Each structure stands twice: as structure tokens, then as C-alpha cells.
């Protein structure tokens, strides 16, 4: 029987949650025995090759590209897991959510004290995905099945969750593994 497949992505995140995935250390060898990785920055597979059992989502949606990728994950994965605070509540990127988008861009590209931008241009290439008016938690864009909070979630949390799901056991984390920081 083919091994179940896992896909991962980092949307509006810092890749810290992916670092935490790698932090499971030598257990990654065991994980490779249990699953194949499909689309993921870990193996640099850019497009889904087939249906996946689990999709791990790091980061919320700050632009329309994030939305497209997240919807693609929803379409290809049986189970989606929001990994980390950014996917769950927007995280650090969501600190802009109380400030209008125009003000954010002006601060970042024109008015910020460290900005050097003699032509006073705000990048606007068609390759650049349009920003959303605010950063959206993943579950406000698509249905999410499980949530692993933390910034990042500890490697043990990710390991516990993945192994529980792969073995069909209910996901119940011990108190010490539920952390929002």
C-alpha cells in the first residue's frame, strides 16, 4: 500500500513553523517511513502530484496568492492543519490589521525612517500578488480540520499530532503542549 502523502506550505508566515517541523530531529527518519512528502518547501515540489492525506498550513493569508495556494491545499488534502499562530489568528503579520492598507504601504515604502527610496515608488509589478485589506486566519478562508497553536508549535506538538492522525487515533494533546507562544 502506498504511503499517505503530506503537503506543507508557508503562507504569510516566517518559516519558523517549518523549522519546528524539522526540529523533530531524528524522528524525521521515522516520519519518512510513515509518509511521503508531496508539495512542500522541504522537498521543493512546487505542484501537487496527487491527493494528500494531510496538509500543514503555516501562516495566514495576506495576499491573493496565499488565498489561491490555501484553496489549492483544501482541494488536494483530506485533512488541513493550521500550524502556528499566524495560520490560526494572523500572527505578527496581522498587526497591520488595524491600519488601512494604504498607510501600511506608505510607511513601508515611503515614510519609514529607514526607507531609502529616492524615486518614491511603491512596487507594483503584475507579478506581485495583490495584498488583502487585512491578514486573514486560514480558517476564515477555507475549512480547517485541526489547529496546532504556538509560535512556533513545539516539535513535540507537531510530532504528536502527525503520528496520532496517521495512526487514526484521536488528537488529544497534553496540557504542556498547548501553548500560544
Amino acid at each position, binding site marked *: 500500500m502506498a504511503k499517505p502523502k503530506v503537503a506543507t506550505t508557508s503562507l504569510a508566515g516566517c518559516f519558523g513553523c517549518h523549522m519546528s517541523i524539522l526540529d523533530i530531529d531524528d524522528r524525521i527518519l521515522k516520519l519518512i517511513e510513515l509518509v511521503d512528502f508531496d508539495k512542500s518547501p522541504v522537498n521543493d515540489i512546487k505542484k501537487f502530484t496527487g491527493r494528500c492525506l494531510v496538509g500543514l498550513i503555516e501562516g495566514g493569508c495576506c495576499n491573493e496568492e496565499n488565498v489561491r495556494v490555501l484553496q489549492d491545499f*483544501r*482541494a488536494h488534502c483530506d485533512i488541513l492543519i493550521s500550524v502556528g499562530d499566524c495560520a490560526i489568528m494572523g500572527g505578527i503579520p496581522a498587526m497591520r490589521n488595524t491600519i488601512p492598507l494604504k498607510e*501600511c504601504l506608505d510607511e513601508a515604502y515611503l515614510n519609514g525612517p529607514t526607507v531609502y527610496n529616492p524615486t518614491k515608488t511603491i512596487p507594483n509589478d503584475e507579478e506581485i500578488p495583490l495584498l488583502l485589506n487585512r491578514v486573514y486566519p486560514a480558517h476564515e478562508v477555507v*475549512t480547517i480540520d485541526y489547529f496546532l497553536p504556538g509560535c512556533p508549535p513545539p516539535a513535540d506538538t507537531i510530532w504528536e499530532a502527525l503520528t496520532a492522525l496517521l495512526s487514526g487515533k484521536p488528537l488529544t494533546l497534553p496540557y504542556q503542549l498547548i501553548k500560544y507562544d
Partner: protein
Amino acid sequence: MRRRGTIGRRFFVPTRIDDAAGSSYNRESFHDPARRPHAAARERVTERVPRAAASFAASAYGMRHCMNKKLQAVIQGICARCGKDRTRMMDIVRETQAALGCVSSDAMDLIARETGTHRVEVESVVSFYAFLSSAPKGKVVIRLCNDVVDKMQGMERVAKAFEDALGIAFGQTTPDGAITIEYAPCIGMSDQAPAALVNDVVVTSLSSDAAREIVAALKEHGDPSRLVRQLGDGNNGHPLVRAMVRNNIRARGPVIFADMEPGAALKGALAMTPQEVIRDVKTARLRGRGGAGFPTGMKWEFTRQAPGARRFVLCNADEGEPGTFKDRVMLTECPDLLFEGMTVAGYAIGADTGIMYLRAEYAYLAPFLEDVLAQRRAKHLLGPAILGKQGFNFDIRIQMGAGAYICGEETALISSCEGLRGDPKNRPPFPAQKGYLGFPTVVNNVETFCCAARILAKGPGWFAEMGSKGSAGTKLLSVSGDCRSPGVYEVPFGVTLADFLAMAGAEDAAAVQIGGPSGQMVGRNDFGRTICYDDLATGGSVIVFGPNRDVLGVALEFLEFFIDESCGYCTPCRVGNVLLRERLHAIIAGRGEPADLEYLQKLGETIKTASRCGLGQTSANPVLATLKNFRSEYEKRVKARGDGLQPSFDLRAAVADAEAITGRPSVHAANP
């Protein structure tokens, strides 16, 4: 060293940790946005003198010298008239608002100083009530009622006419400071909607033409009282009222709308002991008319028995439930009956003071009511030794409200009378044990006092024979909406809704809101039910909706009302109703899914169970009742998607800002 401080308007997004002020990482600089120059640039920054110099003494010194002498004189005068008594804060801030057009930050400081309280306590009160403001308003404030019934009767066209004629939007003041327009929740004129308050003057049955005429007249003479051309019926034409308001009394019953010689009830009461009076009220099986239906005699007995150096009788004339206006008609047509009921209650419980809490929207009735009180004093129906009864001294004063629906909740009403924010109080202790200023207090509705007076005049048996088994007597119903004869009806308890709707000319009603937004909305299946405490209970509001009305739209309007009027004290009411609104709005906008129904149900039940006062506990009713009685209206608007995408997420709206800024369209929103 000068210290720099700031009040950040909003979250500051740090872009880097080290900053120009100090290159080394410093814990405090990380916490204190003011220390980052880029933060200082974008946020309002207050330069501060060293802390010692900013001490109270120094700022008070500065205040004395800088503050407008006139302001000081006005505030000192107002506070002196109110005995510098902080429990009279409502009167102080109302008078300040009237005299100065706002209760400014400087005024708050002065009021706090004059009354020996803290300025933040004054700010707390001013910021609570809709009729008070810290920012200046126009000399004339037009408050257009934006209640559901007013909207059904064309209020939006009227609003547009006001905006166009004045060149400003709602919430704004004309540049010359003459006129402010704003919205107000139900002002108690639903039977003659659309209606508005122009300062204290009521204008009813408005059209867009009327709105333009009002603006033209105000621009010409600025005098709201001259807007009243045709006087209403009954005491609306009294020289001290002079209102264009109509009573619209459609059915007169024997309890409220019958003649009574002033003093008749008191004579009956004073011939008995207070305990016998309470016994009569109990025998009559009188229950509170405000909606909750607590047995009045029992309430009076608890209050009488509670230990306390003084006792108080409070009349709840803060009729704020949308669609209710029967108290307004009683205040206009039978104030003697009401005051007599309060006096009887005073005798029964052993009180020497009664307070009538009159909603700010009915301020136009205050001079008339004061005059009625004066006449009663002259007739020895109020004051010392009433009707010659030695030892029974009782007088009534009117406490004006300032625009807060929550003050119709009895403990919030007490808070407001005490000069506080209109926050409800924790129970226990109940008002009967510890009410106004901590003394045992009876709080009853206008109609309850009127019933009590009639019981003492006509006898408990006479009263108890009317109505239904658990609901003795008659009930006043205020009817508005899609019916031919809106107005006030006095009907015996136990009438079926269908019979009543026929009386009001509402045979084709599709939905009826019984008891206002906090009551329930019922459909045709329930029209055979009876109006009484044990079935369709109501404080008096009956709003009729015809077949073409959108009941979910109505529920959304009611939620907006509760969100605006929540005191914000407890979590479920403050947050939960916002969440109900968001989801209901999404459903109405076609972005709902079947699971939303259970979401709304559970959220509504949490609000109902966990909220602290009656407002919160009933605030989810617009949703819970429509989920129960009009479920198909929800079901036909939600659709299952099956693709795992959240229907509530609106990509087109989410990219709209960026599309406008970049000038290029979203590639994704076009092909979702």
C-alpha cells in the same frame, strides 16, 4: 531631561528593533513607542514636562488661570443648584449639555472639582448617554428615529432630505454650528412614524417635504418650538405640552383610560393600614406591566419588610422598547392616576420620596408633569401629611434620563438616578433589599402604578375579575407597523393575537413582534395564541409586519439596536451580539452555509444564558425567535458548498483596497 510620551492611536508595527534614538537594543524602547522616532512621527505625541511639574497641584494651578471664566461660572452655577451633590450628576451633566452644547473635557474637570469626585467618573457618565457629548454639537440637534417601524414608513427618504437640505451627513454638524443631525433609536412615536426630535420638540409623520420645511424654518429662526403648527389631541394641546403628538387611543378599557377623581385611590388606601393596601394589591393579582410580570404586591411587601432607614418608590418611565409608546400616552392623559399610584405605593412600603425616571425623549412632557405634581401638592395629595394623614409625607420628583435604553432595566435605572453610568447592578441584593442609594426601593412601570391606583379606588375583586387566569386586569398595547390603526389599545388579558390584529386592522399580517426586540417574533401559526403572561408576554409593544417584509432584515435591525444600547458590562452581550450580527449579515448577503444556523443557535443560547441583565438575556431573541418561527427564511438563503471554502470569506471585497491602490485588477477574484 524632557520625557516624551504618546498616546498611540493604534497598534504600531515595529519594523526594526534598534532605532535612531539609541542604537543598542533597549527593553524600554521596545515597549515604549514614543521612544521610536518613526512612531513619534506617525502617532500623536504629547510633549511632557517632568512628572513632578505635571502633578495635580500644578495642573490645577494652570487650569485656574487658563480656563474660560465663563465656563467656570456656568458650571459652578449648575453644580450649586444641584447642591454640589454627585448623586445628582445626571442633572448636572444634562444642564451643562443644554447650556454649553457639550460637556467638554474642561467642563468635566470643573464638575469633578465642584462635586468632589474624579473627572474620569464624570467622563464615565457623559460617555454613556446618547444625549450627552464631550464634543460640541449644534445649537439644534435633530434626532431622526431610525427604528424598524420608521424605516418601514419611509424614514430613509426623510433622512436623505435632511442631509441634502443641510449639506451634511448624519452624525455631523453644519459648519456654522447651528444644526446637528443624528439618528436615535425608537423615540416612542412608532404610531406616527417617521418621527424625530428637534431638541426637545417632537415632529411626527415626517415626509421629505416636511424635512426640507423643518430645515428651512430652522435656518430662518432657529427655534424648534415654532415647528409645531398643529397641536395633537388631548393634553398634547395643553399649554405646557404644545406638541403635535397624537394619542391615537383606539380602545379604552376600564382600568387605565377611565375617569377618576384625583385622590379617590388615596382615600381608599389611607383608610387602611399599609399592610392592607399590599394585601389588596396581592388580592387583585396585579403583576408588573413592564414585561417581566413580577407580582406587584409581593414586591411591595419585600420592600416594606426590608430593613432600611428610608425607602423609595421609583417609577420607570424610561419607555425604550422599540415599538412601545403606551407610557407616553398615559403620561399625557393620566398623570394623576400614575402619581396617585406612586403615592399609594409610598404609603404601602413606608417611603417618603418617589422618583419618576423620565426618558430624555419625553422631555417635552416634563413641564406639564411638573405642573401636575404642583397641583397635587396644592391639593394635599403630595407633600407633608397627605390628605391630613399625620405621619404620611410623600413627594415625587422627576429625574430626566439622557438617552439609554438600558436604563429601563430597573437596576440600571437606579444607577442612573444615583448619578452613575446606566450599568445594571449585580443581584442579589435586589432593589427591594438595597436599591436607590442602598435603601429598599420599589421600581414599577408607569402602567403598574396606574393599575395599582385603580385597584385601590375600585377594589381588588373588580380588578381580578378581568383578564385571564394568571393575568388579571387589562393591558395597554402599542401597535405599529403594517396595520390600518396604529395606536394604543387597552384590552383584557387573554385576547388572542388574531382577534387583536383584527382590531388593529392587521388581518394580513405575516409576522408580529410581540414585546419589542427583546420579545419574540411569531408567525401565522401562532396567531391563535393569547396575550398574557403565561403565553405571549409583552410589555406593550406589538409591531406588525406584512407579507412583504424580510424578517431576517428585521432581526438584523434589532441586533443593531441591542449592540448600540448594550452597556458593555458583560462579555456575552457586549461581544456576542456583534458576532450574531456579523453572521446574520453574511447570511442575508448570500454568504451563509447550513452550519451557520447551529452557530447562531449556540451563540444565541450562550448570550441568553450567560448575560447579566434582562437586556443581554433577551438580546439574542431576534435571532433565536426567527430561527424557531421562521426557519425556512434562513434555510432558503444558506447553501452547502462542499468545496471546503468559507462562504463568509469575500475575496473580491478583500482585494478591493489593493485594486484601487495598484490600479490593476485581481487575477484571482475574477476566477475564484
